[in-house]
């Protein structure tokens, strides 16, 4: 029997399973690298697979260079503007910290609190469909069956959407923190402090960030960096 048939029929041993996993992953990432290199070859070297496109590619390269120069000038202007606006520094940092890392939400086999809705919410979250994930978690919350995990990922989903929804994120994360002996307390605290910053609630954010630093909790060094740039009077 072919290896692939064994894999899809669940009769492959560990070694065979590893070989198939490796093959799929390699094909996927090789294809991505190949696509990147093709684009770069055309853009930077004027080389394409189809010879007739080469002249066009070179002309396009000249246009791209002009457009890139203009774009670079605009970006430099924007960067100067950013530096000249210290008021927004903490918000920019909060945005960067929010997008730099999105906590993973794994399905836990055998968990007593597992439901179809929750499963769908996890899948949506892992696909980075944060709108859908938030909708489903809200349904669970409205049904009165929400756990700390539901509130936490609801909060993170609100914060990770294209149009960030700060107020509901704060409410969800506060709910997560209100659950006694929570497993995600440190994470919820960190995201709540970022949500406060997004809402410009500096005093609330400061108090949480100081607690994170003082107790050397998760993200303590990032919290310290944020504290350094917070304005004192707000």
């Amino acid at each position, binding site marked *: 029997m*072919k*290896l*692939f048939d064994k*894999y*899809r029929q*669940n009769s492959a041993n*560990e070694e065979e*399973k*590893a*070989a198939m*996993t*490796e*093959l*799929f*992953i*390699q*094909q*996927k*990432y*090789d294809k991505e*690298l*190949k696509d*990147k*290199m*093709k684009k*770069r*070859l055309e853009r*930077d*070297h004027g*080389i*394409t*697979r*189809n*010879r007739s496109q080469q002249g066009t590619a070179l002309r396009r390269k000249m246009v791209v260079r002009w457009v890139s120069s203009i774009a670079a000038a605009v970006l430099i202007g924007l960067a100067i503007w950013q530096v000249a606006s210290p008021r927004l520094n903490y918000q920019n940092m909060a945005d960067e910290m929010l997008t730099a890392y*999105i906590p*993973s*939400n*794994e*399905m836990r086999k055998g968990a007593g609190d597992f439901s179809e809705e929750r499963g769908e919410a996890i*899948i949506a979250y*892992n*696909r*980075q469909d944060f709108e859908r994930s938030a909708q489903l978690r809200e349904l669970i919350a409205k049904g009165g069956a929400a756990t700390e995990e539901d509130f936490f990922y609801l909060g993170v989903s609100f914060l990770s959407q294209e149009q960030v929804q700060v107020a509901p994120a704060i409410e969800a994360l506060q709910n997560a923190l209100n659950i006694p002996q929570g497993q995600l307390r440190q994470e919820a605290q960190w995201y709540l402090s970022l949500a406060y910053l997004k809402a410009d609630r500096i005093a609330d954010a400061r108090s949480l960030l100081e607690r994170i630093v003082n107790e050397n909790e998760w993200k303590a060094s990032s919290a310290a960096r944020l504290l350094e740039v917070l304005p004192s009077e707000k």
Partner: protein
Amino acid sequence: MEKQTSNQRSKTDEAKNFGLSPEDFQTLLQELRAGKDELYQQVFLNHFGDCMNYLKRQYKATHEDAYDASMDTLLIFCDRLKKGRIQYGNLRFLFTQMAGQVYLKLKKKNSRYASFPNSLDLSDEETASIPQEAFEAFDVAWPELGTECRKLLKAFFYDRVKLKDVALQQGKSEAALRKQKQRCMQKLQAIFKKQYQA
């Protein structure tokens, strides 16, 4: 005088190695194993045209075949670098020789996809027996796997990082990570099966 000769020698060495010094080469390996391919692209794509010209001149390859063979060689070369199977010395020679072999293999099989000389221990026949729909199903299944699992499997199977090194980075034991890897593969297989049957 001695210093001048030594400088000339290192210049010649760098020319044989796509302009890379031994230190640059180590940096390149580290970056590749960290999942970063920017430097690799920057260095090797500069020589893509030379490689195509070599294949056209040496093997009378058509433009399209020379392009495909050079591109496939870039992928295989990258994988072998990550696996530590290529040493600093004369990378340019090695690369063009490999490109020649890839070209001949492509011509022999007369099918680009089927003849892709994968770096696994699977035969070409095994690889060719996998339907295209399976790769498409995998593309859909992959993002459904949790982020941690994706990171671990990519680091191990694509970036070729040893499990003990990943364990060290994450502050976990190698045994725990091996179990995690097995669970992740299991999970991926289940999601894949669902997608493939759908």
